[in-house]
């Protein structure tokens, strides 16, 4: 990698002190499908739109929300393939941590390591930043947690957050609806309503995906029939 013509870093500073490639990466995220997460008192919910490019696509083969450990799950906005690479690295890091310390990786540690990987790709030769922002939802000894990691490698802990196309409307909606002592069931309803706000077309269990972590520290993705039940409750 050292001697090639492209061994300089593509993320070089602009005169105004910005890293233009990262700004562009954030644009890629901003044009991706909306996803959001809400931290409740007894769990976390993450949700995303699952708009497929054509009705011919087999929607059961697409899974945007992935689990990284039994108690940590990830959703993204932006470029799907980039998120797959990151999820793979996350899983491996979680295993390596467990092998070394014989303890399941705490959510903050996993977020920190993922953010470090994303930052590496902004300061190395011949690579480009990741075109995804991740929402990492987990439940460990510190309770339920929700983190957002950006292409630059910066991460924040959120009570509720959204990313992608409809981010400003979704965030305003969440700001109005969020309460500190929200239960997980309320959070799921709020998440669905937030997605519904900016949804083009008929919302159903087949074109959104929802993942939850409950107080028993188990992350799981809801089936489309479960989502349809929640949608019926929300109507």
């Amino acid at each position: 990698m050292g001697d090639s013509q492209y061994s300089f870093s593509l993320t070089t500073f602009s005169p105004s002190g910005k890293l233009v490639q990262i700004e562009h990466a954030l644009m890629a995220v901003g044009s991706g499908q909306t996803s959001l997460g809400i931290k409740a008192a007894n769990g976390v919910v993450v949700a995303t739109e699952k708009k497929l490019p054509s009705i011919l696509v087999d929607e059961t083969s697409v899974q945007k929300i992935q689990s990284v450990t039994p108690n940590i799950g990830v959703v993204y906005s932006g470029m799907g393939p980039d998120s797959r690479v990151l999820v793979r690295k996350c899983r491996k890091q979680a295993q390596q941590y467990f092998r070394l310390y014989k303890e399941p990786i705490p959510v903050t540690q996993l977020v920190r390591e993922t953010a470090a990987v994303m930052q590496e790709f902004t300061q190395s030769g011949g690579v480009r930043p990741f075109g995804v922002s991740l929402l990492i939802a987990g439940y460990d000894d510190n309770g339920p947690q929700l983190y957002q990691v950006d292409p630059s490698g910066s991460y924040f802990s959120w009570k509720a957050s959204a990313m992608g196309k409809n981010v400003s409307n979704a965030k305003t909606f969440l700001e109005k609806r969020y309460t500190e002592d929200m239960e997980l069931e309320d959070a799921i309803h709020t998440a669905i309503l937030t997605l519904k706000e900016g949804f083009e077309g008929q919302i159903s269990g087949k074109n959104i995906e929802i993942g939850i972590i409950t107080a028993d520290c188990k992350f799981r993705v809801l089936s489309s029939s479960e989502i349809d039940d929640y949608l019926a409750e929300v109507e």
Partner: protein
Amino acid sequence: MVKMTDLPTKGGFSFDLCRRNEMLLKNGLQMPPFRKTGTTIVGLVFQDGVVLGADTRATEGPIVADKNCEKIHFMSPNIYCCGAGTAADTEAVTDMVSSQLQLHRYATGRESRVVTALTLLKSHLFNYQGHVSAALVLGGVDVTGPHLHTVYPHGSTDTLPFATMGSGSLAAMSVFESKYKEGLTREEGIEIVAEAICAGIFNDLGSGSNVDVCVITKGKTEYLRNYQLPNPRTYISSKGYTFVKGQTEVLSTKITQIQHKVETVEGGDAMEE
């Protein structure tokens, strides 16, 4: 520099030091002995799944290092592995393959298969040409049914309906060969396994203490730690172990005074601030 792809690790045994070792042996050096588990481990297939069994003694030469160690290692919720040989090797190799199986489960979204664990173990052991001294009995139940395998330190494997490994394997095998039949029930299977381990415990010096059993069936695994305790501690002295002062007889006394060594330093420099 960032690695673009995860390069496969350059594994395999590095033979660089072998010539040096040969030269040292020729010059009369004694190789240090390995710490082994000296074990009886067994497994058998019954009608609904597999039963694994192990003793619980870990030895360091002639000394018992651990009276109640765990030799049945977790590989995945439906696969367990008994380990004989060098304790560190069996622990490390089963931990490593368990981790790899977990990553594989995330990637495929499916329950792990016994042959996957088997292949990962045998490839690793073959790469290390027998220097990783781990002799394993691997058993589990997956979508293709119940499976039982033995893995040898050099990387060869056998697929068997009943198997024993370790220093007590002959004692245990004698029990299996006379009592095993196809289509055993769960109770019969556990009984034969416990009997085989007991044969190892009582007839082999390298095995001892308690019997651990693990029963794996479709959808359910029971790890019966210390299923039998045939060696309870019965020798506690009723008088207790405190001793009155003066109980020990004094045979002779020699007193040597401490001679203080006095050093005078002449005109040393003052300490720098």
